[in-house]
């Protein structure tokens, strides 16, 4: 679902020159504060006295859906706005987040105490938030249709940030909106480029009136990522083949070639087995098909929540015969997890893609990164 509504994005597409696909992770670093350079799913525009944010097609398969908000600084005189019902007063003081990626970005801006509610406290990794949960300062509002609306009212947040799994998600929050609470749909997870996801920190920057800090975090990340990517390109000679995921019964959901993880693997000097596929979602493939290609894989990554080879065998014994399994080239992204299953890969991983890149590059090219200790990934034995 490519919505090319903003000119900077089109410009980037034109100037991008990646070997594998329309990878926009390249080159130009914007020096203009508040300009969105990489993200496709939101825009941010400074107007006279307020900031307009627009969320574009916030769920998978949405088209022509835009959410517009006007951020007005507290204490300033209200300008004449196109729609006063979409005003959010900033800086935001109390927020409810439904995705852990939101938490990582808020934490990076030093505003973690503004988080008063989350969806699923057990999925949180951030020690700070867990501390607040234990102190009773953070409520668990539940999921989707089971949103605890009474708790939401009790927490009285300035806004709720949700991520939509479909148009029906808007239905779940209709009632909440009716109560006058602002609901922003965060579409960061739909961004297929690693740096585009990171750019969503600018949205939080605007919400907390910390635009400059957000900008510098993003720019520093872009710089590190691009520098690392170039270094990898210059120092590798082969591109090992990479298999991803696990089957469920006889179906194997395969991430497409234009997915976030596929781009990371490509940038890390790997050859993802399905890099040529184009789909906005994971596709259900027959297990024999994936298995046959999997036989050629050198490395196998992102195997769910598995921590040992025995667990893989228990899923399907036939997987034991894959060469990447036999050769112990099996790595998973669950090094930083809490005992409840909160995984930092899904939390701060989106904010620091250069660390993900370095991890994957170290796995695929250990000779190039001899000193790097893996951050999010671990070897599965």
């Amino acid at each position: 679902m490519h919505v090319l509504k903003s000119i900077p994005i089109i410009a980037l597409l034109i100037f991008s020159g990646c070997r594998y696909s329309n990878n926009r992770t390249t080159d130009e670093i914007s020096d203009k504060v508040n300009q969105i350079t990489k993200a496709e799913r939101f825009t941010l525009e400074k107007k006279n006295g307020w900031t307009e944010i627009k969320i574009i097609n916030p769920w998978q398969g949405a088209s022509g859906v835009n959410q517009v908000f006007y951020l007005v600084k507290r204490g300033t005189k209200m300008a004449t706005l196109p729609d006063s019902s979409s005003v959010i007063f900033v800086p935001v003081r109390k927020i409810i987040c439904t995705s852990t990626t939101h938490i990582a970005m808020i934490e990076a801006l030093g505003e973690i105490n503004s988080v008063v509610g989350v969806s699923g406290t057990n999925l949180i990794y951030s020690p700070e938030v867990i501390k607040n949960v234990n102190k009773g300062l953070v409520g668990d509002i539940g999921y989707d249709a089971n949103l605890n609306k009474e708790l939401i009212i009790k927490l009285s947040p300035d806004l709720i940030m949700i991520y939509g799994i479909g148009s029906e998600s808007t239905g779940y929050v209709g009632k909440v909106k009716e109560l006058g609470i602002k609901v922003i749909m965060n579409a960061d997870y739909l961004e297929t480029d690693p740096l585009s996801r990171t750019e969503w920190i600018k949205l939080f920057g605007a919400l907390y009136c910390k635009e400059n800090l957000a900008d510098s975090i993003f720019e520093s990340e872009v710089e590190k990522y691009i520098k690392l990517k170039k270094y990898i390109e210059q120092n590798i000679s082969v591109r090992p083949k990479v298999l991803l995921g696990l089957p469920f019964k006889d179906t194997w959901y395969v991430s497409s070639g234009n997915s976030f993880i596929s781009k990371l693997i490509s940038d890390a000097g790997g050859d993802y087995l399905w890099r040529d596929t184009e789909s906005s979602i994971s596709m259900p493939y027959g297990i024999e098909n994936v298995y046959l290609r999997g036989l050629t894989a050198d490395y196998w990554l992102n195997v769910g929540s598995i921590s040992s080879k025995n667990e893989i065998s228990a899923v399907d014994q036939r997987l034991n015969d894959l060469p990447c399994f036999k050769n112990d080239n099996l790595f998973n992204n669950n090094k930083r997890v809490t005992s409840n299953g909160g995984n930092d890969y899904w939390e701060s991983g989106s904010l620091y893609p250069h660390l993900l890149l370095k991890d994957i590059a170290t796995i695929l090219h250990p000779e190039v990164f001899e000193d790097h200790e893996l951050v999010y990934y671990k070897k599965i034995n």
Partner: protein
Amino acid sequence: MLLIVILLILDIFLGSVNIKASEVISAIFNNSNSNYETIILKFRLPKAITALVVGVALSLSGLQMQTVFRNPMAGPYVLGISSGASLGVAFVILGFSSNIAPESLNGLGNWILVVASWVGAGAVMLLIMVISSRVKDIMTVLILGIMLSSGISAIVTIMQYFSNETMLKAYVIWTMGSLGNLTSGQLNVLLISVLAGVILSLFSSKMLNALLIGENYAGSLGLNVRFARAVIFICTSILAGSVTAFCGPIGFIGIAVPHIVRIIFKTSDHKILIPGTILMGGAIMLISDIISQLPGSESVLPVNAVTSLIGIPVVIWVILRKRNYSGSF
């Protein structure tokens, strides 16, 4: 019989990976040790055998249920076997795993879901048997069975309502059915159970014929009706229960196949219907499996959807062609 063999071979030759016929043959007969050999011997062969066995078991238990209840809409799941099994599986996927991801559930092994669904199906069957031994009228048993199923489904719905996306997806995928995930040990267990069920049902053909004229008349002919019911219920539990445990609830085959067989063979004699159903059930399930693999494309369809999509038009066609069909009951 020949049709079955042809379909079995076709099922092995066609899959989501395109493999040339010559390579399939060399994979089977020469120890070529190629990658294709792995695909053929470890993936397609067990899956084809599973499809055959599943088709036989579900069709046969469907036939038995239709006769016992003298109801054309009855099927293997009418007594609540599938809802019992779903309850067992729902407990594992949606209940106990609230703190763990479905993949680590896989880590506990294939057997967990199998045992859970077996226990669930068995518990429901046991309850039905107890009711059936105390209730004289078979229609009462049918109604209680349906009520029980609905009640259990409601419990499962509540559990689904309170689970998150990943758990829900794992559960929904289970309900879609799958044929290709059995280990060789599991396939052996399935084969033995179904074989036992088939033998038991061959012996029951006389009882089924007698039941066709109604339980009262059958009783006056000297049939011990409650004993016959018990034998047939046990037989169905073994057949449909094992299939559901290993492959999930696979729909429609059990209802459709007996009708197709009745019309093709133009008889209601179970000495013909039982072998006919065994063959036809196996054949249709193999066809469904071939279609679900979408030969030529990389993707696959859930087999459960395919059985319904090919079963429904066949049954409609068959019934519309023969207007006085209900006379067979």
